[in-house]
């Protein structure tokens, strides 16, 4: 499956995580019932081009609850890292470690394994 390159940005003061597929494109927004926003391409309303989570650190513990994030087959390569082929849930776990916990080892291969194991349990 093709991976999309993903830019990840965290705005700490607003506790908001921004995920944008690259190249960036204008979008309209939908949301899950739990406040996880999904960006759809402006001209192609079926194509997902990003995500946004307001209150990211407050709600990350709900990540495994049904309906919080959409179930997608998409895979992502995170810009500026060696992380490739991650599922959305893996990206979110990584972002939490990297940006909220400020765990600078989050980009090491071991972190990739940890993220995968956490997702499987």
């Amino acid at each position, binding site marked *: 499956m093709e991976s999309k390159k993903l830019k990840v940005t965290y705005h700490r003061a*607003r506790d908001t995580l921004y995920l944008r597929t690259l190249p*960036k494109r*204008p979008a*309209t927004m939908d949301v899950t019932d739990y406040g996880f926003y999904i960006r759809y391409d402006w001209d192609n309303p079926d194509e997902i081009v990003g995500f946004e989570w*307001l209150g990211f650190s407050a709600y990350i513990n709900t990540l495994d609850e049904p309906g919080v994030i959409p179930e997608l087959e998409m895979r992502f390569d995170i810009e500026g890292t060696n992380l490739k082929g991650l599922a959305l849930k893996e990206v979110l776990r990584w972002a939490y470690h990297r940006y909220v916990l400020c765990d600078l080892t989050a980009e090491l291969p071991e972190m990739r394994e940890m993220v995968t194991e956490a997702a499987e349990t």
Partner: protein
Amino acid sequence: MNRRIISLNTSDEAFDLFQRLLTPVVVDVRGETVRIDIGDYVHLMDDEERVQRIRWIRETLVNPLEIRRSHLKSEPFGEVYINTIYEDEGDLQGRPFVVGVERRAGVLDFRTAFVPHPQYLQKAKKGKLIWKAKS
């Protein structure tokens, strides 16, 4: 009901407009104060379709079609301003636009603003109607 015709702004105009039209507060259609600060600009500035709609944010707060309680489980104190805005006289269809705020201790804080996907509007309509424009 009057059509809300509000032109887009350029990206270069956006920050100045944000400061002049939105900060530090906007008094909404109900006479309530919505607090907006410079940090909120960071939320808008990276997305072309948002940064071009600074005027739409103000218009939607002061002249919405309706205000609803947020339908989101994660935002029990959220309120959503819903509008349809036309870019110019020749724009016959208009576009829906949404501004989300949060009520904290009786004060409203800006949370987000965007052009909604059609699915979003269906969900937002599940939220309790708080205010509606007279037709």
